[in-house]
């Protein structure tokens, strides 16, 4: 496979994120093209034709989300980029925010033009310091160059953008909690219906897309939806940014063409497992996707269809590699501590269930596990499946049941012998 790249197309240097260098690479050409040669409807049609799916985790087709908004229905519309990248193991949007902030800004301008959005927002997580400074500096440059404000590029199109910094809550990465947070309220997710594209930010139709998804828009407009469709697989076109961490030789952010062989990506691109160990498992797309064992990934390719067939998904593209010798009980403890800490506490199954799961796994780890604990964890996961306001309850349930399904014997061993079958740590020292 050719492994085409659409986003990481330039060498990263000290100044590659600036407006000058972005323009030297042809930046803001897509905006010129959209504003001067295309109607908003044509932009939407082009994006729909590209078949691009959301990169935030749910893989919802971007064109279908945009199609719900009617630009000329007489109300205000809002566009919001979700840069609250909080899924553990995921740091791919950070690459765009740090090294290609103008790519996001240009794409958001095009999207705002397509949807006739006057005010756009970027919700960036509070912990992102350098990305925020880069993004804020880029926005200032863009305003100074006349890409934002009134009469952009001499046309009638006007758009303003506000960067809103979150305060570090995981749930605020959920679209409805995110807009509630922008409104200045407690970041609770909202019940659907109504969908956010019907009634979202300030009760107006709102489109919320992931940073990576939006950043593809500039390329799609420059090269056309059909050209985008040629990249990746037929059902899942384009490329994915994969952030890989854990027990891997070369962790970092990689751009792969969708459909790239999984094993090849791990062994060749990322240099294999840390210390040359065997692969125990991989969490493929952020901790809310189900874990895959080393054997399972052998025949897989990196696309949603392939991973879905294996019972998992590409999720947010945050891969966590787990080498042989890692204690999965401890691993689940870390995950459940996270979910317990981040549950917003709004609806009952997640508020009570996350704490309960965490108390059970804590008990197992200190050697006070009991018969029936594993069944209880399955049961609590099932109670959260599809029954909560947002997807967090489901996600925690998938993570729990995914690990329990594949490593149940380790949990049984831990409960019976009051110690880990592995060496009990999560670290994987490099073999000397």
């Amino acid at each position: 496979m050719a492994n085409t790249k659409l986003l990481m197309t330039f060498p990263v240097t000290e100044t590659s994120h600036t407006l000058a260098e972005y323009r030297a690479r042809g930046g803001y050409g897509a905006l010129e093209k959209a504003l001067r040669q295309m109607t908003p409807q044509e932009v939407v049609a082009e994006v729909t034709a590209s078949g691009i799916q959301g990169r935030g985790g749910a893989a919802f087709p971007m064109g279908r989300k945009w199609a719900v908004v009617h630009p000329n229905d007489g109300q205000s519309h809002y566009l919001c980029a979700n840069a609250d990248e909080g899924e553990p193991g995921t740091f791919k949007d950070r690459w765009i925010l740090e090294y290609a902030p103008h790519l996001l800004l240009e794409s958001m301008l095009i999207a705002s033009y397509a949807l006739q959005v006057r005010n756009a927002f970027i919700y960036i997580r509070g912990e992102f310091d350098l990305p925020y400074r880069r993004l804020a500096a880029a926005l200032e440059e863009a305003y100074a160059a006349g890409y934002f404000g009134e009469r952009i590029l001499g046309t009638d199109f006007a758009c303003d953008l506000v960067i809103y910094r979150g305060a570090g809550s995981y749930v605020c990465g959920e679209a409805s909690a995110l807009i509630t947070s922008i409104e200045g309220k407690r970041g609770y997710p909202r019940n659907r219906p109504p969908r956010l594209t019907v009634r979202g930010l300030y009760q107006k139709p709102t489109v919320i897309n992931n940073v990576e998804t939006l950043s593809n828009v500039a390329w799609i407009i420059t090269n056309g939806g059909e050209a985008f469709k040629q990249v990746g697989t037929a059902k899942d076109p384009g490329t994915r940014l994969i952030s890989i961490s854990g027990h891997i030789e070369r962790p970092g952010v990689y751009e792969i063409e969708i459909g790239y062989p999984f094993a090849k990506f791990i062994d060749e691109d990322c240099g294999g497992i840390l210390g040359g160990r065997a692969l125990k498992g991989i969490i493929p797309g952020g901790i809310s996707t189900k874990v895959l064992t080393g054997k399972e990934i052998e025949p897989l390719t990196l696309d949603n269809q392939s991973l879905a067939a294996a019972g998992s998904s590409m999720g947010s593209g945050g891969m966590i590699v787990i080498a042989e010798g890692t204690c999965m009980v401890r691993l689940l403890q870390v995950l459940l501590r996270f979910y317990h800490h981040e549950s917003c506490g709004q609806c009952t199954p997640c508020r009570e269930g996350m704490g309960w799961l965490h108390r059970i796994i804590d008990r197992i780890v200190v050697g006070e596990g009991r018969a029936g604990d594993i069944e209880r964890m399955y049961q609590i996961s099932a109670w959260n499946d599809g029954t909560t306001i947002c997807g967090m309850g489901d996600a925690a349930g998938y993570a729990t049941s995914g690990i329990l399904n594949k490593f149940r014997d380790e949990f049984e061993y831990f409960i019976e012998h009051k110690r880990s079958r592995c060496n009990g740590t999560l670290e994987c020292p490099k073999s000397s």
Partner: protein
Amino acid sequence: MPEIFINGHSIQAERGQSVLQAALAHGFYIPYFCWHPKLSVAGNCRICCVQVEGRSWVEIACNMPVAEGLRVLTDSDTVKAYRKSIMQLMTLNHPVDCGICDKAGECKLQDYHYKYNGAPSISRDAKVRSTKFHALSERIVLDNERCILCSRCVRFTSEISKSNALGIIQRGDASLVRAAEDRPLDADPYSDNIIDLCPVGALLSRPFLYKARVWYLKPTPSVCPGCARGCTVQIWHRKQEWKLNALDPRQNVSIERVTPLENPHVNGPWICNKGRDLAQIFERPRATQAMQKGKPVDLPSAIESARHLIESAGHPVALVSSWGSNEELGALKHALPGRFAAFTKHDWTPQPGERLDDDLLIRADKNPNTATACALFPRQDDGASAIAEDTDLVLVWGEGFDFVRIPVGAKIIFLNAYLQPENGHADVFIPISIQTERRGHYTNFQGVVSAFAPCFPKKASVADAETLFAAIAATESARA
């Protein structure tokens, strides 16, 4: 009018309704904690789940709009199993201390536990500990361990009373309902409604704390006399069969608490805090002894003296109570001889610090029946003296009139229920009954008539104004 099907039965729902509203309106019960007809939909308790026919999962009914042909099941096996799981989660960290909880007996969590779960907790892990007896305001204590975070109280203060006094802090199972730092809940005159709204025993009334088990109490429908709104209330007092023999017998005839009596025409489901504190009005020291010039006499001779004074008066004036019931005011109008000049007076005026009026319930007129009184008798003109100089008899009914305004030499007949210094200054003083001892009606400022019923027996030495007027105003010839 979309037609929907609940458990296979066709019902005509109204457009814009949720499935929960439509089901309740047609007699299909769906349990709910966080939903309330007057508050926005929060959808956080998840107990109102129903199943759409053909789907394998459950959805919440409070946020499901009705749609033509929608078919939902409220009691399928999936729904029952899910409700049971929600009840397990609800009681996971709930202390289940019903034995010492004031809410026991009228608690949704308790009722639903027996109705939808019934099984003991399947958890063997320690419960999450939290704050007990947190003083949310001067009037309300909060038990965070009992709280199920339904957010009804938070939504009430932001949507109905608009004090924005409450919010939720922290996250997950550590979430806590808390008042804002400058404690605006103390200034919210509707704060006690959150005690009724609380589906569990988390929010408790400090005056009512540990005073009685609710099943020993009986509610009597009544009307709040605190202002011209005339909110319908329930006065809770001890049931006769549960009367206390060993303790202070006054507890058997005292107001234990006051709650709203839902009334869509007047107050909806709310009342203000003044209505909760009716005991402060009705349980002031009572006058029970008829007097002449401060000397105790029996009731019949006081009535006889009053009748003589009225017969012999040349220019009598009557000052009519705006706290009288429609029946009493009618009786006075009927009995009063034509030579009387009668005026309606304001028995109560706003107290210092009391909210004067607002858009929700509270009215500036702090008397319950000014409407009927003014319809029968002209309002007292506060600017000029209503009492002419040649007045030789003044009949004062009720509180709130300064005797200094009565011309020197004029005789005074005073009808009052409470122990006050003026009682002894009157030529004839007759103690009268209060609202909790008789039956009657008030007409509020909108013209809505509400009824009140007696809670306690009236003492024999106290007169009922309705019969008293006929007795004192009757002339000799009329009686003969």
